[in-house]
């Protein structure tokens, strides 16, 4: 292009003495190139200009698109644009809620105070001023930390906002804050053994916090449990009152949905406040419901009867000889209060006959008994979402003596959770589900059959008889058709012999028996007799009335339909009540 501008002049005019340049017209006439070099040059320049303009145009269009175009139709596009500011949840550990969404464990944002001793100019003075603001710190400790060598040392974790303000106000260089969080349990003792607790680094060290630690740290969606905090509180209150009243050293209660084996409430006493990091006596840390293994006593007769009926070798109408103690090779089996006659299967349950139960088991045989116990999960640790669990204790050799003693509840030690899970399977129509605490667990869909439907129905009738006619009379709550079985087990004393004065009592029950919905287990450790109980310490005098109180209080909460016939006096009262205001 520029070549063209100059080349024009040169054609026809020459100054005198000027050198005649070799023009493109004359001197390269014989040059056979198709294009002259100047025009090639021009074309190249034009081409590159075009390319630049194109590139700039592309940038321009894109710029228009980004800056101007969105603003032209801003009003229309407001809904279509899904640009969202995404802020990360500052709380790292997920909450735990009960089945109704009530928060039962949560983390609070706090700040931790740390120091960089290298930056601290005057450790003595800094320590003095710090101790004034935080009186719980000791001057010597703080001074030692501040004059140390490292560049990072924690002074205090989990400051309150006012403490943080005061420390900031001191203006000591070298003191720094770090965001942290502290796990708190708003309901204090209520869920102590269930939830467990976390250590200073927010890592679960007990209970669900430990068992579900990964889930709680990976996602910030709350973890919902099957626990109902209202029911849990009611049971906790009644059980604490009972422990006080019967002067027991411990107690536990579990409420379970029999059809899914979801745990609705789980209480173990004595308990502790997980918000406090002080170490109370170790006994209150012990979870009786899932960690403790106990010989359940007569409660195991339920499973003995179920096993015998299921085997087909025993029928409900069969009778067994309980006229005199049963003599075996190593031991003699006696009844607590013997009837001393032949007893039918239902009478064996109602009078809780050890002799009868042992005879039933011996008739069925050890192999089948073992197989049944295996199916009921009595030989394995439970798959359950609490860190504190135990494996049952059972004899390796399964001889005649073992068959007989296991039939009435000795020689096999189980956790209460084992007992109630198996009990649920017996009464719910014969399907065993693994117990669970997680609301959206798929365990409830993975049940397997352990008993036939008919055996389960027969068992329900037998258990109802125990409550209407036998040792569970005091649990016959009007309207809720309670069925269950009591058990009083003598505790082993230090010398390895059973002590008949010191007992552990259990009552395992279900309601309403016509269509079971819930199973309740109440166990008390070393309840004492009183004048009120005629100095008896058997289950019928302590855990049974406690269970009755619990059931009559929680059944309306759980929306269990009361079912009973009205007598005339009550009819008259209801009429009166409905017409008077």
């Amino acid at each position, binding site marked *: *292009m520029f070549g063209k501008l100059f080349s024009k002049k040169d054609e026809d005019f020459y100054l005198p003495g000027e050198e005649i340049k070799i023009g493109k017209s004359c001197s390269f006439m014989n040059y056979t190139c198709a294009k002259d070099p100047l025009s090639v040059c021009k074309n190249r320049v*034009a081409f590159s*200009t*075009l390319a*630049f*303009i194109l590139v*700039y*145009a592309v*940038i*321009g269009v894109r*710029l228009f698109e*980004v*800056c101007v175009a969105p603003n032209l139709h801003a009003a229309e596009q407001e809904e279509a644009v899904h640009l969202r*500011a*995404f*802020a*990360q*949840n*500052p*709380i790292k550990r997920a*909450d735990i809620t009960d089945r109704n969404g*009530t*928060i*039962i464990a*949560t*983390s*609070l*944002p706090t700040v931790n105070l740390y120091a960089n001793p290298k930056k601290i100019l005057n450790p003595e003075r800094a320590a003095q001023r710090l101790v004034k603001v935080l009186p719980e710190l000791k001057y010597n400790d703080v001074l030692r930390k501040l004059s140390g060598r490292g560049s990072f040392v924690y002074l205090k974790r989990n400051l309150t906002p006012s403490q943080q303000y005061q420390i900031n106000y001191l203006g000591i260089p070298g003191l720094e804050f770090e965001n942290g969080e502290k796990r*708190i349990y*708003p*309901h*204090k003792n*209520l869920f102590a053994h269930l939830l467990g607790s976390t250590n200073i680094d927010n890592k679960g060290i007990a209970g669900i916090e430990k068992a579900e630690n990964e889930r709680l740290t990976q996602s910030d969606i709350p973890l919902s449990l099957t626990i109902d*905090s*209202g029911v*849990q*509180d*009611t049971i906790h*209150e009644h059980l604490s009152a009972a422990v006080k009243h019967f002067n027991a050293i411990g107690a536990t209660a579990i409420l379970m949905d029999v059809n899914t084996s979801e745990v609705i409430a789980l209480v173990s006493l004595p308990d502790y406040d997980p918000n406090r990091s002080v170490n109370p006596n170790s006994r209150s840390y012990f979870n009786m419901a899932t960690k403790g293994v106990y010989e359940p006593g007569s409660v195991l007769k339920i499973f003995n009867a179920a096993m015998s009926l299921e085997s087909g070798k025993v029928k409900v109408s069969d009778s067994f000889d309980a006229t005199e103690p049963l003599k075996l090779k190593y031991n003699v089996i006696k009844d607590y209060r013997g009837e001393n006659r032949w007893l039918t299967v239902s009478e064996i349950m109602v009078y809780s006959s050890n002799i009868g139960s042992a005879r039933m088991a011996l008739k069925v045989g050890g192999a089948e008994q073992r197989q049944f116990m295996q199916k009921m999960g009595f030989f394995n640790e439970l798959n359950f979402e609490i860190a504190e669990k135990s494996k049952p204790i059972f004899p390796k050799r399964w001889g005649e003596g073992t068959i007989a003693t296991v039939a009435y509840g000795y020689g096999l030690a189980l956790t209460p959770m084992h007992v109630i899970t198996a009990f649920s399977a017996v009464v719910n129509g014969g399907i065993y589900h693994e117990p669970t605490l997680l609301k959206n667990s798929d365990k409830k869909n993975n049940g397997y059959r352990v008993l036939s439907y008919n055996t389960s129905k027969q068992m329900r009738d037998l258990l109802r008889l125990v409550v209407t006619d036998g040792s569970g009379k005091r649990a016959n*709550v*009007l*309207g*809720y058709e309670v069925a269950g079985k009591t058990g009083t087990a003598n505790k082993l004393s230090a010398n390895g012999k059973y002590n008949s004065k010191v007992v552990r009592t259990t009552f395992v029950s279900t309601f309403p028996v016509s269509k079971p919905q819930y199973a309740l287990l109440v166990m008390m450790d070393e309840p004492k007799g009183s004048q009120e109980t005629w100095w008896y310490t058997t289950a019928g005098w302590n855990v049974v009335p406690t269970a009755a109180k619990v059931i*009559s*209080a929680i*059944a*309306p909460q759980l929306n269990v*339909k*009361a079912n*009973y016939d*009205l007598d005339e006096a*009550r*009819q008259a009262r*209801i*009429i009166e009540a*409905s017409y008077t205001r």
Partner: protein
Amino acid sequence: MTSTKTASYILSIIIPCLLGFGILVMKNQVQGLEKQLVVINKNIQDDIKTIHVLKAEWSHLNNPARLRKLAAKHISLNPIQAEQIINLSALPFEYEANDSRRDLAQRNISDYADQNKGLKKLAKAQR
């Protein structure tokens, strides 16, 4: 040829200038938005924290033991008993004692008819 040439000269100067200005404006906007985003994110985090604390407090205040204490102090309601809950069909209404439902309905209808007759008479008398 000359006009295209001049036009291309002018374009090659003006377009970069315009684009340069445009990019400057955009960068300014982006910086402004980014500052806003940081503030919004911080506010959201603060709000999340506050909501979290409030939720914890709400749960603490809803402690069943505390509610029970308050209920005992302020309202005179007791826990419900089994016998206070009853099926509607189990309620002994008056008609169940003597008449069938059908008789009762019949009687009610004739009662209404009598009432209407009485009203008509009254209206006539008033006229």
